[in-house]
């Protein structure tokens, strides 16, 4: 059976092509759909197994990153989207897509309604930065996207990736329910301890990505779709082991395999 992925596009989203390629390489059928096509016909989402909100600069990050896109999605596609996730479908938000997800409240989705519990805001450096980071999976996370992943690398490319939960209780709830799926780490997998550049933006608890308690909805600031080929890695010319595919592909393959196994 073919696994169908809807890759959202439009209004400043700009990673839809490579996100589509990543899903295709992982064995899915992927289609880029402009947001105006989805808002015109929200129910069309149910023909898909996976929703991807790619990276980009929706609305130029004006007001706050992801905010205007999130509002539009919630106002115009909200009901269909809630049904989509209640149906056990999968969703991923990468970078700007992650910002959209937390601001519309589809993550962490503690209850079955969209509420903003956490935010992603300006990096401590107040700078947009493009650099590669090491990412460590939380061993207790149910995140289906991170199956068999322990430590991986990917680039970050953002100015607003600083993860802040509503309060300590929210953080604890995230931690206890395995929602903290991915953390910035040192090269050896040890904790980044909030230190730049291993933690590139000042995120609380080094959080790079979170999932919902079911593990099916996942958002992260780094770009796994930008590490599909080994040659994407900054030091592939130094390391013979870096041949063939990139480490980021595993995430997309996990999702496709999960849907197939259903």
């Amino acid at each position, binding site marked *: 059976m073919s696994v169908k992925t809807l890759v959202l596009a*439009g*209004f*400043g989203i700009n990673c839809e*092509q490579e996100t589509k*390629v990543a899903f295709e390489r992982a064995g899915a059928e992927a289609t880029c759909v402009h947001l105006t096509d989805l808002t015109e016909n929200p129910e069309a989402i149910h023909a898909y197994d996976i929703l991807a909100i790619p990276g980009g600069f929706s609305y*130029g990050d004006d007001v706050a990153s992801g905010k205007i896109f999130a509002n539009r999605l919630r106002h115009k596609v909200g009901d269909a989207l809630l049904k989509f996730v209640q149906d056990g479908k999968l969703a991923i938000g990468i970078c700007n897509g992650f910002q959209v997800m937390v601001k519309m409240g589809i993550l962490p989705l503690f209850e079955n309604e969209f509420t*903003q519990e956490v*935010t992603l805001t300006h990096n401590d450096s*107040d700078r947009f930065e493009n650099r590669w980071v090491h990412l460590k999976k939380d061993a207790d996370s149910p995140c289906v996207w991170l199956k068999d992943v322990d430590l991986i690398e990917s680039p970050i490319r953002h100015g607003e990736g600083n993860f802040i939960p509503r309060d300590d209780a929210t953080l604890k709830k995230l931690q206890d329910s395995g929602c903290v799926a991915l953390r910035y780490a040192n090269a050896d997998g040890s904790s980044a301890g909030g230190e730049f550049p291993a933690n590139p933006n000042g995120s609380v608890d080094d959080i790079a990505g979170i999932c919902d308690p079911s593990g099916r909805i996942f958002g992260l600031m780094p770009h796994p779709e930008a590490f599909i080929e080994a040659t994407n890695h900054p030091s592939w010319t130094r390391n013979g082991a870096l041949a063939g595919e990139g480490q980021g592909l595993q995430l997309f393959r996990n999702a496709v395999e999960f849907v197939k196994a259903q």
Partner: protein
Amino acid sequence: MPQLTNETEIPTFRIEVGMQPQFRDPAGQDVRHQLAEDLGVQVDDVKVINVYTVHARVTAEQMEHVRTELFTDPIIQHSAVDGAVASDYNYLIEVGFLPGVTDNVGKSSAEGIVDVLNRPFADDEAVYSSTQYAVKGPVNKEACEAFTRNLLANQLIQGWVIHSAEEIESSGSAMVRALPIVTDQSDTEVHEIDLEIGDDALMQLSSENTWALELDEMKAIQSYYRDADTKAKRAALGLPENATDIEVEILAQTWSEHCKHKIFAANVEYTDENGQVHHIDGLFKNYVKATTDEVSKKVDWLVSVFHDNAGIVKFDENYNFALKAETHNSPSALDPYGGSMTGIVGVNRDIMGAGMGCKCIFNTDVFCVASPYYEGEIPSRLLHPKRVLRGVHAGVRDGGNESGIPNVNGAIVFHDRFLGKPLVFCGTGGLIPTKVNGEPSEEKKANAGDYIVMSGGRIGKDGIHGATFSSEELHEGSPATAVQIGDPITQKKMTDFIMEARDLGLFTCITDNGAGGLSSSIGEMCRDSNGCEVHLDKCPLKYPGLAPWEIFVSEAQERMTMAVGPENLEALLALAAKREVEASEIGTFTDSGNLECFYKGERICSLSMDFLHDGVPTMELKAQLTPAEITSESIPTDVDYAEELRQVMASLNVCSKESFVRMYDHEVQAQSVLKQFQGVEADGPGDASVIRPVHGSKKGVAVACGITPKYSDLDAYWMMAAAIDETVRNLVCVGAKMGTMAGLDNFCWPDPVESAKTPDGQHKLAQLVRCCEALKEVCVAYDIPLISGKDSMKNDYKIGDTKISIPPTVLFTASSVMEDATKSISMDAKSAGDHVYVLGKTYDEMGGSEYLDLKDQLGANVPKVDVVEARSRYEALHEAMMDGLVASCHDCSDGGLGAALAETAGAGRLGMDLDITGVEQDNPLVALFSESQSRFVVTVSPEHAAAFESKMNPTHCVKLGTVTESPQMVIAHNGSELMNTSIEALNDAWKSTLNW
């Protein structure tokens, strides 16, 4: 600029949003840091508050809803409608845009409100964004005024108010800045221009209107209107005998140096250094085009050169590749941020307007500025180089990042004379399927009967006279309206729409609106059909009150013009509406032989196509070289070599630019193979970048540049040769093959036309001739066709008695299509034990070197290029690379062999143990810092050393030593040790100068 006003009928609400006090305010921290760093102003704290002034028919209740739903992040922010958020400060400063200036945040906010309230905005409703800075610390109002002017705001585009805490408390009100609504209406009547006046009056007319037309051009226009045929034709069309304002404006735009390249087309009488006189009927024809004609006999991959918005070459069976670079110098001098942003998004549109519309796949950028640590006087109207550099960098950063186009290559070049005019080069590469809807994608044509459709942004007064303004020196009267701010998101939406429309076959021809606006885009496209009819009242405006001529020549950004067949018009406009992209039918292409404009049904312009495009008189220019006064250098002998190397590494032109590059998205589109920074810690300076633009294919594109204005004062010929050779070396370093390189020449020159204000024009033109000679000779020898290029010929500053002319500069950019990008070579030393070689002979060529610059000397011996010898080296090295013999390869350029060795070792966090006696220079400083061309530092593993050496010409392949585990740079010469210094110290010196 238009005037501020207070609008009363429509309610106005202010929403202020700040960080809750328990959270860090990174934007405020950054301002505090920059105040200290750039201006030496110490304050205790700065908080940044975003202000949205909503001017719309909404209720207080609705505003409250919008405040929480849209403007406030519930986790970290607090906010108020019509209330103050700032607390605990001494001064409150609010900066907002002047009327008519592009306000991207305001525009997006309005779209956000439309979604939240589910109601559209009327034309007279808007959101205006502004920024409040709550400053705490020991400063007074004067100091606030000064740093606002010098750091927070640009008075050409922004206004501000400053109040002390006491003032706000006593007045009981918050900040009051009038709404920046445009109320200043132009006279929209069409006026006649009487050209039956004397020569002086003609020139006065040209200058007063920023037409930048010369006397013989004004007279050519005068005689066009005197012509009996013209008179008869005009009478028949109901047009006055006199020219109309819009007609002269169109001629001025079309004939501007910026658009017509008159100097490159001029007849030049050139007296060479031997006194021999040469008559050159066009530098472009005889050097630029001739180069491509010559090389095209040897390469088979040229698809479209010179006539389109960008050059197009073959990539593979399914795709073609396009490349273009532009400059945006004059606007960047006045507003660095807006100028460079419009530069980058503007060159993106060149690629989008090449062929049937290419997808942008990478950007490049090169900035030429004076030292950011300049301490002298800043001449009137100029900005401090540090502010210029920060601004142009931020503009390219935001423009590129928000457009989703990776920035893959660039440079920052420092020279004192760029104080007078900074140079901002922006380049873009593109990809297009070889066929679109079954037809060759490089071919396009506007047919008579096709509709003219303008898409993207609306038209305002921004950017009026950009083309003519940049065809003059920067002077006291340079118009502020020439300044524009880019709107990358409007452009991104349009880009997505155009790619979709292209694949649906909805247009037959496309071009961008750049310099000269519609006048230029339609004027060019209608050459296909031989005429057009434009209805200017159909053009969507940002605000009312533009004169018809203003509508036609405005350079308002983010617009493309398309030719659309009648059968497709409805579908195209419907698609645009659905994607929320502005698109308007504004006229038709005709075969009347005339460019005609109408306003409210009345004909206001009819210009013969022949006169418009071919009527400009050819300039007759003289060129004669004044030999440079050259003083031989004095090179010390007994120095601390390690310290000299550290100083060279720390010099502005050599030092790391990583902090600038990190802020560019250089990996979006996920094609990256070799990035700008390479090595163990990804901080070694790469020579060229490599991408794989088609997912799943190993085929790559390498792109690199070369720019060496430091040699111009010695000899512009060798400046050009060095720039090309540097570009080629950079490409060869990563594995590109000779015969696959396509070049772009971007000339930036000081005015080379002799006149009262340019008495040395003949010399500057002779430099240009020399430069063109080198361009042809070197490109032909290296088989590099020039596929596109541009020139900017008036890079001077003149106000009062101060005149600053830039050093003659050419940016050479080249790309190479690589068969297998997975064989790319990076520049970092890989393993201890590897052999270290220098390829190419080092001559005593210290002239213009970074080393002598540190000693405040120019020197005498300019580096030269032996193209035959260099080419054979490049070919041999390429073969060695493809045989897998090379571990790393790095170009020797700024800072010479010394810098190349230190960078190679530093990037690998490894040491080197070397003896440079084999370089054959008695003075070790010459061996280390001479900038002889065509050289590389290569490391090779011991197992491949013999094979490598036998590939290379033994006389120019010198083994210097080995890579060592111990991270020390140890260099000996003639039996004595010159230095033994830590790699870390060299890296630190290299990285600290511009670590902003």
